[in-house]
């Protein structure tokens, strides 16, 4: 395996694999989420458009 600009590169005959596994783990650690339940989809499928202004405020310093 080789590293290049944070990308992990694997090679085998006629095939190249590019991954970012270590970077993903690092990002999860940053938010202390490495033990959270993994999800198979990036968004819930029965998603409805909602008016976010009705919800409570979040402290922006949590992610900035």
């Amino acid at each position: 395996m080789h590293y290049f600009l944070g990308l992990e590169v694997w090679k085998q005959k006629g095939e190249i694999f590019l991954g970012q596994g270590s970077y993903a783990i690092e990002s999860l650690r940053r938010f202390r989420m490495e033990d959270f339940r993994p999800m198979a989809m990036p968004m819930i499928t029965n998603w409805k458009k909602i008016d976010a202004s009705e919800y409570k405020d979040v402290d922006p310093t949590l992610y900035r």
Partner: protein
Amino acid sequence: MAEPKKAHWEVAKHVLKYLHGTIDYELLYTRSRDIRLNGFTDADWASSVDRKSTSGYYFNIGSGMTSWCNRKHKSIALSSSKVEYMVAKTAFCEAIWLRRLLVNLFRRNMEATMIMCDNQSCIKLSENPVFHDRLKHINIQCHFVRDYVQRGAVQLSYTPTGEQVADILTKVLGRTKFDYFREKMGMVKSLFK
């Protein structure tokens, strides 16, 4: 985010959980003899709460995806074919740049690049020299796309929605379709972990 709310927070956390679920996934590129650039564009008209549209495109050179983009539009489009046409124009720019890059790298002539689109009226607009009154505000885009279609470098071609891989960039899909398109883009479970 100017006004972060609990709802946004939950969605953002879900994205990180998805990242967690896909740590083992990698982009697979396989060897291919010919260098053919393939493109896909899609748009989801007026999909946001503020009625702005979402669009996306992606390109591959025979296997895994090499270039992709999705964004929420800054202005509101009046019809779905218009928004499809706008994203086609953006994809054309990317295709032209990628073609130049490939020609410079391999010093070979390339076949025409097919950009797949699931909007028939958008494809007709790219081929048909007739101008419609309703298109006059985007006529520079129209001329740009048509010019390249006529030169034969880049073409728009029809693909049914079921095979429109760029759908994954613009809308929320069901699990089956999502997994199918993701695999089509070259995202596979790692063999090395």
